[in-house]
């Protein structure tokens, strides 16, 4: 198998200014390295503030890391100029937690779907419409909804639409940043199945960012556990779940709500 993406000791700092004006530095990524192979899923799990979303922004070329390399198909994304970066960006697409806020509320489904195609300036009008229809079908939506606004869709339909838009430019890597967390449990399962279907039919590669270890284990081949900007444990999904080593993993597992559980941790005193 070919590694599709390889991150080497990524570092990202944010300046944090307190009210008093004192400058502090927040190390959001502190030497993160990993490899994603083509056609597989890597899940990155961690608590809020562990650096998961910063990692996503760096991989999608939305932020540039202070140090480190991101190798994507033999090119180092960190060192690419603006022009070269434009060539690579369509191949890495992001899907966010809340489809309601990542879709323009005033645009119809069709407008949302053709925008990435218009930006590429490669397609004729008719062709774009056809593509939009086939994208909708691919994610299990009826082409009849092209005229609707995002507000007229259910949460699950909106997330399917966000996935369809991300697929419009035939990316190689999809970064899913908490893409299931805002959905109902039953809808989560439907979207999770859709992601797996797309992976087997299109050979998609996913970076799945979540705090839901159960879903991570379900979707991913490998899991990387993050804490304070570092990957503290990484391995096959099965192994992370059954033989967790690091205390962060243990803590995440202990905090997972599960149906069979008889009692919560002791009542606070």
């Amino acid at each position, binding site marked *: 198998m070919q590694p599709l993406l390889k991150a080497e000791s990524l570092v990202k700092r944010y300046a944090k200014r307190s009210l008093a004006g004192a400058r502090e530095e927040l190390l959001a990524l502190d030497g993160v390295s990993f490899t994603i192979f083509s056609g597989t899923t890597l899940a990155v799990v961690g608590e809020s503030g562990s650096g998961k979303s910063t990692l996503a922004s760096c991989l999608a070329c939305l932020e540039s890391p202070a140090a480190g390399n991101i190798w994507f198909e033999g090119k180092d994304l960190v060192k690419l100029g603006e022009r070269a970066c434009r060539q690579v960006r369509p191949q890495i697409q992001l899907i966010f937690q809340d489809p309601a806020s990542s879709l323009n509320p005033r645009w119809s489904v069709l407008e949302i779907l053709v925008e990435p195609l218009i930006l590429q300036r490669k397609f004729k009008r008719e062709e774009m419409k056809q593509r939009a229809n086939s994208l909708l079908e691919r994610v299990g939506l009826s082409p009849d909804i092209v005229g609707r606004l995002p507000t007229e869709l*259910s949460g699950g339909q909106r997330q399917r639409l966000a996935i369809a838009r991300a697929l419009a430019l035939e990316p190689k890597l999809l970064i899913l940043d908490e893409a299931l967390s805002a959905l*109902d449990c039953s809808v989560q399962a439907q979207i999770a199945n859709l992601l797996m279907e797309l992976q*087997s039919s299109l050979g998609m590669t996913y970076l799945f960012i979540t705090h839901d270890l159960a879903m991570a*284990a*379900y979707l991913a*081949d490998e899991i990387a556990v993050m804490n304070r900007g570092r990957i503290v444990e990484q391995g096959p999904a099965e192994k992370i779940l059954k033989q967790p080593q690091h205390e962060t993993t243990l803590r995440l597992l202990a905090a997972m709500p*599960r*149906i069979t559980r*008889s009692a919560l941790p002791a009542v606070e005193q």
Partner: protein
Amino acid sequence: MTSVLEIQDLHVSYRSREGVLCPALNGVSFGLMPGEIMGVLGESGSGKSTLAVSLVRLLPGNGEITQGAVHFEGKDLLQAKPEELQQIRGRRISLIFQEPSLALHPTMRAGEQVRQVLAAHSSPGKSALNERTRQVFAEIFPEEANRISRSYPHQLSGGQRQRVLIAQAIVCGPSVVIADEPTASLDPATQMEILGVFRTLRERLGLAMIFITHNPALLSGFADRVLVLYGGQVVECGPAETVLASPRHPYTKALFQSIPAVSEGRGNGRKTRLPVVPGDSSQSSLPRGGCPFEPRCTERMNICREREPELVNLSESHVVSCFKYEG
């Protein structure tokens, strides 16, 4: 024991832009016992948020309560005058919403936001107000009450903001708290922490709670009873352990199966599909005869399309609305 809040045959509809009435709640009835945590489980569109706001008549302008009664402290809230309702809302029955960052004023210190809730409902004098606010903060934030109370919302974490909302909700000493997805935007560890706060409050203050969520796993070990809403109707209601461990309604069963279990994993690396509830919940909102879940149900029978099932008693405390269990 008599219930502190008694909901009888509640019907709520929304008027669409074209003037058509769309039913959101279709005859919901249940009683809430003092000190009880009632978990209300449902997916989007099931009517669970409508339930939360219609109990204290905070429906948006196009919402209408068409039928039913909500008895609280000897009054029917649905018939109460606006002045009477103001005495109850926020003081005897309070609400906690999902998004703590939207529910808080961005440029007001946390302490002041809690103090104002108290001031709006009583006028005990400045020092008494401050004293009570301090007490509530000390209760909810045992470790850093002072710092939090002087902070602005943006200086607080999601969990801390949610605790400020809880402080607002309990500062007037209510007997019922209605929480609509209060932990949905938090990570699992913080979710558990907030559930812990609720449990502590229930034990100390004897609060009764309606806890609305779409995640059944949160209710396990937390709620006393679980009520499952589907298409604006109660499809199942019973003791939490019973419903969560052995659900009876086909919807409840399908819903629980669609959640991947931590212990299972995928096994030998093969990717299998998650069992899903087929179809879409929006199908159920269409007014039609028959069981609301029938179009998505895998165990449907002929009768399911003909008329609506009644609630059947499986045991003294466990009811389910499905023809499978009708004698």
